[in-house]
């Protein structure tokens, strides 16, 4: 276990060195990554999403791709397509950006629904099929999608069913004044990150992910507790559709990573409760149109009504 904890530790030190004032966001992104999920960031531009993605990719020496979504983006622009090779005289598959380990999908809600679903499909299945041929995606595969606040013009908001594929939805928020000052003084850290060397290698990361998945224990009490919360979201009057089984599963995965990050090999209630504002609200379809904070308030009330599993 110590070996794998060291991996986490190294990555965290790396982030601390290059990224300022984003501890919480980094932590959430890391949790998502190690629980084999994908991250959705809803934020204004220019707050460091790309830097975060590059930092994650750089720190573990994996490759990084980026898609800037527009409304004329086609599914093949993401997955790749067969191109005729004149020299060889045959079609050969040209991989799209999705074949990177870490993929930053910028402003995903600007893409058309067709493109969106192609992307989300690939995220779920971890493979793409082009013209009848199936191609496995790389491992690890981690998507960081960003979307502007849904009020923006010319967007296609992601439906809740699609949002379910993201383990977490977070927002970075503005850095604090001190951190911002630090950033201004030092200039953009992007260059430094690009010059840095990876602190861990890909195989170590994959082993760690595997270790977490296999060895962190989740007691039945915790599972029952989670199921009770899930059940309540399905019965609640304010909620049209509650948490899915996939949602519950990904919450368990996040909890496992969270436990591991705290050097534990067992999950405690806090591992679930500390992250519910990021793991739950975007998967719930409320009857009324509520802001994210209102959703969290309603959820909090709901969770408090469930007896803790002591």
């Amino acid at each position: 276990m110590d070996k794998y904890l060291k991996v986490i530790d190294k990555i965290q030190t790396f982030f601390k060195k290059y990224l300022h004032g984003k501890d919480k966001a980094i932590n959430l992104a890391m949790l998502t990554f190690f629980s084999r999920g994908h991250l959705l960031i809803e934020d204004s531009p220019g707050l460091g999403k790309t830097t975060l993605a590059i930092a994650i990719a750089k720190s573990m020496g994996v490759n990084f791709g980026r898609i800037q979504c527009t409304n004329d983006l086609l599914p093949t622009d993401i997955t790749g397509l067969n191109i005729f090779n004149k020299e060889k005289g045959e079609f050969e598959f040209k991989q799209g950006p999705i074949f990177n380990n870490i993929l930053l999908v910028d402003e995903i809600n600007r893409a058309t629904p067709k493109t969106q679903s192609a992307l989300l499909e690939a995220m779920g299945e971890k493979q793409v099929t082009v013209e009848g041929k199936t191609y496995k995606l790389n491992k690890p595969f981690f998507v960081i999608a960003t979307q502007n606040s849904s009020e923006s013009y010319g967007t296609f908001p992601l439906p809740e069913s699609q949002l379910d594929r993201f383990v977490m939805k977070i927002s970075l928020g503005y850095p604090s004044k001190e951190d911002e000052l630090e950033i201004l003084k030092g200039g953009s850290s992007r260059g430094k990150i690009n010059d840095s060397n990876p602190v861990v290698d890909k195989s170590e990361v994959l082993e760690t992910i595997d270790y977490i998945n296999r060895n962190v224990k989740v007691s039945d009490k915790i599972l029952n507790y989670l199921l009770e919360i899930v059940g309540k979201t399905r019965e609640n009057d304010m909620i049209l559709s509650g948490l899915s089984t996939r949602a519950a599963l990904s919450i368990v995965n996040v909890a496992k990573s969270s436990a591991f990050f705290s050097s534990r090999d067992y999950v405690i209630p806090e591992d679930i409760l500390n992250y519910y504002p990021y793991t739950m609200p975007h998967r719930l379809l409320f009857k009324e149109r509520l802001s994210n904070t209102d959703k969290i308030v309603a959820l909090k009330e709901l969770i408090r009504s469930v007896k803790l599993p002591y």
Partner: protein
Amino acid sequence: MVKIIDLINYLILALVFVALLSVIKYVHFVFSVLLIVILGIFIFNEKKKILRLNRKVITIFAYVLSIFIFINSNLNSLILTLSHILIIFISVKLLEEKGYRDYMQIVVLCVFLITISGLFDLSMIFLFYILLAVFIINILVVLITVEDFEKDSFLSAKNIKTFIIKSSLIPLLALPVSIVIFVILPRTSYPLFGNIGLNTVASSGFSSKVSLGDVNSIQEDNRIAFRVVMKKVDYPLYFRGVVFDKFEGSVWKSEENGLQPADAKFDGEMIEYEMYLEPHFEKYLITVDYPYTLNMDKRVFINGKLEAKVKRNIDKKVRYAGISYYSDRIKIKDLNLEKYLDTSQIPNKIRELALRFMESSPVKSAENIEKYLKSNYQYSLAGLSTENEPVEDFLFKTKKGNCEYFASAMALLLRVNNIPARLVGGFKGGFYNERGGYYAVANKNAHVWVEAYIDGAWTRFDPTPAAIENFTNSRFLPVGLKIRLYFDYISYYWTKFVINYDFQKQLALYKNITLKFKNLDFKTSGKLFLKLLGVVIVIFFVVTYLKRKEDVNEGDYYVRRFYKLLKKKNIRVDEKMTLMENVDNIDKKELKSFAEMFVGEFYRMKFKENKLDNKRLNEIIKQCKKIN
């Protein structure tokens, strides 16, 4: 739109008010005022939710107060006491935070109170109250159930109307049915349980025959023979049963003595009493010596020997009232004295002894004999003579015996001296139960004494040395006996109110109720109140401790203890939040590190090992406690 909970509160208000109104004439005004004030607080509090009383504390308070009131009351005001206690409990329930159960309890308590009003006063107004209550309760119960089902729901004005009409139909339909049942169902005035346990009480300290030397376990029988409700007196009481006039060597018998009453002249202190006699399977009733009149629902007569007799054996508990005059002697014109002078069965040895006591007057002779027996012989229940001539044996050989020997010896010695003498079998002493206002007399108080006819009066002589315990002062009673007295008090209730339910008598008693309540003696029971409080508190803690140990899940137990500890250290605790979140609220470093340790260990045990290590957790909590 009306909130259902508001509707419930107003209906509760109405119901409690109706209940109070039904008894307001009878209860002490303090209680009425109390309830009205609390009703005000209740309505105000339900709106504003200002008062948040600790449920357990006020419940304990109510219990203690009720016990206090109960102890302070006397028998005759039982119903009044009950209504006071009910008022206290309604008040407490009104102040508490209320759930489904609590509303229902208020409803039931109100029904009790209204029912009690019917016991105070059997007028038509009772019917009005009970019907009104039934209508309110009907609506109320449905509303409470709805509220319990779905909290904070509303009802529109139109719905309220249809709802009230529909729920009122239930009692309307039930009413005719209950009237029919009321007519059909038999009402008993006969004790339902009278014949149960007949065999278990078959032995008693009293019998119509005295057989000297029979093994007599009765003298140690603590069971109650009868209870006499009367004033307390400071002299030992004699309770008269049978008069034995014929001696047959080792057996005294009571020969039938016609129907003509005694031509007696009663004087001395008059005693009015009410007797609750346990079955003894004889025809004799027990009376306070000397009986003047008796009043019973059966034919009873007092014969020339001042024995009270009924036609049939007393085979169930009976109650009768009487008037007696207490004195040492009673003047009776007795013409037929020969049988009291019968010396045919007396052995010669006794005759010789008897002559030694001859004095100038019969009184002196008798006193001489009494003094001789008292000073030269021992009272004993063991090693009694069982020979053919038990009296002779007693006088010359064993020199010890029970009351039967002493009395027999004296009677024989008197007869030889030509003084008419007879034995009286009954009871002597008994202990006075201050709370019940009665003497409880046990089988072991059974006694036999002598009556000698001197100067035209039957004079009582009791040659038995004072060995019979005479519990008249409850202050010196051992604790065990005190508790028994309490139990006796309860069984006395049972006898009085359930088995011998006498409706007329009760009605008469209720009229005095308010008067009697004013005689409450608060000073003497202050100490008792404190003691009681102590006992109740101890019981409360023991019960809560056991309960916690028993049915609370182990994890909850430690979490609760941990939170309690934090609260003691002035740390804000939200039990709905997780342990870690609560620990984050701690400012003090040292405490925080220990708290974190506790939570860490607890979680590890709970979610990894699946088994709590009690020792370790207790140890950490202990260390936490030490930190300031």
